[in-house]
């Protein structure tokens, strides 16, 4: 339980210090909730949660800074960055193009990138997956899926 697991990319200490700031921000925002007119005030738990976040992150940050181990590997490997960009495009596309077109495009491009080619296989898997999701969600369970406004 205490042994270190996988090797970490660089930036652990910086990330932990960012979490300290996040905890301090939550505490500050929590203290601005309503009036602290007693132990049952609405802000008590938010402040307690923020305080616990700050203290715990502080301990983790000090420990990571002291260890100062050199990180291994990139923070955002090429595949993670590429899929991240595609997901952002997918989000924008969902609102504009609707579920079918945006998901087809996302799946096709993501599979094409990750398997380094094989256009036909990527297209077939994307089409089949979108068809299955459409049938299950839209037709069987009558769930509303994003419509988009380009093809509306």
């Amino acid at each position, binding site marked *: *339980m*205490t*042994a*270190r697991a996988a090797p*970490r*990319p660089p*930036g*652990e200490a910086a*990330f932990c210090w960012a*979490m300290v700031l996040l*905890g301090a921000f*939550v505490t500050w*925002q*929590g203290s601005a*909730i*309503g009036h602290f007119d*007693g*132990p*049952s005030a*609405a802000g*008590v*738990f*938010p402040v307690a*949660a*923020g305080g*616990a*976040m700050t203290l*715990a*992150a502080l301990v*983790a940050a000090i*420990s990571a800074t002291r260890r100062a181990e050199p990180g291994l*590997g990139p*923070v955002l*490997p090429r*595949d*993670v960055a590429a*899929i*991240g960009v595609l*997901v952002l495009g997918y*989000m924008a596309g*969902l*609102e504009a193009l609707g*579920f079918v077109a945006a*998901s087809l495009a*996302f*799946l096709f491009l*993501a*599979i094409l990138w*990750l*398997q380094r080619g094989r256009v036909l296989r990527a297209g077939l*898997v994307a089409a089949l*997956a*979108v068809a299955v*999701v459409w049938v*299950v*969600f839209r037709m069987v*369970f*009558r*769930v*509303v899926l994003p419509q988009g406004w380009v093809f509306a």
Partner: protein
Amino acid sequence: MTDALSYFLLSWTDPSLLALTAAGTFAGIYIGAIPGLSVTMAVAILISFTFTWSVNPALALIAGVYTGGVYGGSRSAVLLNIPGAPAAIATALDGYPMAQRGEAGRAIGLATVMSVIGGFIGIAALAIAAPAISDIALAVAPRDYLLLALLGLLLVGSLSGESFAKGLFCGALGVALGLVGLDQMTAEPRFTFGTTALMGGIPYVAAMIGFFGVSEALVQLRRPDLPPIRQQVERIVPPWAAVRRHAPLTLRSSLIGVVVGALPGTGGDIAALLAYDSARRTVKAPTHPFGQGAEEGIVAPESANNAAVGGAYIPMLTLGIPGDAVTAVIIGALFIHGLKPGPMLMVETPHLFWFTVGNLTLANIFLLVFGLSGIRVFAKLAEAPRALLVPLILVLSVVGTFAIQNSATDVLWMLGFGVFGYFLRIYGFEVGPVVLGMILGPLMDASYRRAMISAADDPLEFVMGFGESWISGGLAAFCIAVLAQAGLKALRRKRGRA
């Protein structure tokens, strides 16, 4: 007695009721397995088109969906690390590592059998001890809910991974996220930053999908060259020896499920988390370490969450108070059909009680049949190459999140949590405590404040209140014992290292 037996067997002997229970259970398993499709939503939809039916077919279908749905969440939890429902969060903690070892079939088989056993224990409690359990559920005060939530939150300690500080940070972050929105007691906005979009809070199912599913998919992309894990699907039904070995844990977890399920405002998710925590503290020699694919990590939550179904029916049928969100919807269905769940139900309509008991038993038998079939096909999902699986997980996460309340904002939250979860994970923070905090934080906040208000905002009176009833006293003593045990363990570890 003869009447009770004939009502009990009604859905077993009527072909249409038999078929409806089977269809409901089958549908429930797959509704539960798909993230974003909740049992509550399915039951609410069912009510809208069964309200012209007579009461028995409607209840047969609903009981099947409820039973199947609570179990179904375990499938996607094991195969994709995306709990299909909040009740399967704890199952993912050890089920997914089992799938990573090539034992997805065994994990799902174990989850199925334990769910059925838990379900039977829940039904037995409903049939035998409903009035007694209802009395206990009614006697539970806000301070007791506070202690129960605290017990659940202590799980943060064992879910923290390498660093307790990082686990505590994640648990507290989850509590803060769970408090976003209008305060349920005073309607004061908390962490809303003046935006109406945050007034309703952050849906924890979206956070759960993001933290578990999307972050896992992104982390998998860090090692794209790892070959897919070959799944062993030769033996999916757990051997009798394993069932026997886990029997004491199954019984303990099921009893936790029954009692927590019977408490209004809780449900299978909290029951499963408490049972998982209890298993981590009490099982001395698990098959593997907890969090790394221990069978006990599946046995405890799966038996508890299905036992909670029977538990949730107890206050609903005997007091007219729902045990969880699904039974709240079922109460609506009963009223639509002119029935009045409550203390007079056993007097005015005893057939309804025994019909429900018989129907739930039948649904559990179907759960065993449908749960154990198709596992070989499902397990193959985990063998798919990452190049296909990761994009599919992302699309499923987006659609599942959108389906919760047709909100693009929820999808943004989910993806945001997914990316944040990715950074948390690569730097050694565990995401489990975040979701745990989101579920238990609001319950703890509301219970603490109710208890404090009832003590007239006097901290001394608040503390003295724990001695007022045997439930509070017992729970408080238990919490102190757990904390002392954790403290002693930490001390021993420190001495061992010195």
